[in-house]
């Protein structure tokens, strides 16, 4: 059985930056417990000697020349869809809370 509690779902939601409602926390706690019980079968399907695969077709050292090409965005293009900007930079809300 998984160890997922409402408290742990609230903690995960904080890490994932999603302000879940109480109803969502309750529903997700039940769903995640069921899901984790099923997916946990992977732990018994493998042993320590099996290597992990992160990419199906691994490529190494994919580099390019360190030069600016003609297909980079202009500042105007990069800012065009920003919720808020000052013409050259993205604007964000306060990054520190009162207690910080």
């Amino acid at each position, binding site marked *: 059985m998984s160890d997922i509690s409402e408290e742990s779902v609230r903690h995960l939601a904080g890490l994932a930056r999603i302000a879940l409602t109480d109803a969502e926390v309750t529903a997700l706690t039940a769903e995640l417990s069921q899901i984790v019980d099923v997916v946990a*079968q992977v732990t018994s399907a493998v042993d320590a000697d099996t290597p992990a*695969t992160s990419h199906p077709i691994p490529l190494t050292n994919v580099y390019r020349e360190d030069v600016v090409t003609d297909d980079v965005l202009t500042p105007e293009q990069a800012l*065009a869809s920003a919720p808020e900007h000052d013409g050259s930079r993205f604007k964000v809300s306060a990054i520190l809370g009162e207690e910080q």
Partner: protein
Amino acid sequence: MSELIHRTAAELATALAEGRASSVEITKAHLDRIEAVDGDVHAFLHVNAEVSLAAAAASDKRRAAGDPLHALDGVPVAIKDVLVTTDMPSTAGSRILEGWMSPYDATPVTKLREAGLVPLGKTNMDEFAMGSSTEHSAYGPTRNPWDLDRIPGGSGGGSAAAVAAFEAPLALGSDTGGSIRQPAHVTGTVGIKPTYGGVSRYGAIALASSLDQIGPVTRNVLDAALLHDVIAGHDRHDSTSLKHEWPSMAEAVRKADVKGLRIGVVSQLDGEGFQPGVLARFHEAIALLEANGAEIVELSLPSLEHAVAAYYLILPAEASSNLAKFDSVRFGLRVAPAGGGTVEQVMSATREAGFGAEVKRRIILGTYALSAGYYDAYYGSAQKVRTLVQRDFAAGFDQVDVIASPTAPTTAWKLGEQLDDPLEMWRGDLATIPANLAGIPGISLPAGLADEDGLPVGIQFLAPAREDARLYNVGGALEQLLVDKWGHTLLSKAPALKGGQR
């Protein structure tokens, strides 16, 4: 309704080349069709007739000057909303990107434009491609043209329904665990997931980067091959893109022949858990191939039993990381809590409002799978299962040229039927997921209708990495054998859509 909508892309290319139809006529015919039926089907999230007709007119002008860009110059194509476009909004089916205009085109879209194809619009999908039914689209579900009360598959239900409803001859999809192949299965159409890295993902809004692949969605195998030939190839903008000289997939279809082809049938993807009508059509298709010279080999791939579990750890883990970019700062929605707040609170309020239930479920699951204390047990073990799946396929492909299975266990279910049971819906991906875990290519093409419900059934073939052409060979051959046997295409048996104005 113009007959042009019933032509294949290959036939449209010929009509254009022989001057029997213009791109404007063809594009207009499809826009009219969308106008007439998409109110019911809801395959499209965005259509802009002006933009499409301007592209069509430019194509006609090139052709009149004797300078077409490609055989498919002037043929319309629908684009899954996961691919970003400069002249149409790109939302990936999410509220968090509602109305967002990309400053650049995805590489597959660029390649379409460079070949002169005419973008018709953006197709509906499960939010960020998370789902098997399009019911998780923030903009409402797409309906299956075979039965409007049923799901069109997912996540690419919009692209599959668009071609099945003759709203577009061609479409692009993305396949992370079956999102191209399963919709093809339930709509009686063709879908291909190319080899991982075969088609650039630059500009494809990422779901799970070690699994995602872009591919063609069409009504027949030759059209898929023609589209595949346009979009394949190395792209310096995608660091996972393969530098490989791809053979012509269209050539593989034209020369299709299964004599001597060794086809593996996987015992883990047969029998229990599969609908009888799905199995019946699958075994008939295999028998037909055998009667025409293919050699059938029984295969056991035991690791596939753990593939779904591994996938639902790897996908949420990667998705939780990829979707962190929707932070209310650089693009997309911003929702401020009452009285303002810190950037962290604004982010949390934005993501609460902008993401749907399935996306939240998977992000939280992924965050859990990656968190300290669980990482090795869950994500680490899932990656090891991936190795076992790759080894099983490698051993299988030592004995056979291609591997066959039903594409999915059941035909299209009713809208709403599985919404409250995510695990049940996820299990439906058991036959398609292994190809994504292994990075190998797969095709689904129509195998017939199930006896129980008269709904389409697909057959899937898988090939080793970089051997996509083998899928077009076996798919092209089987399609021809089945059409000869039936005396018609499967889609010609789909009920006519009545009304449903957009």
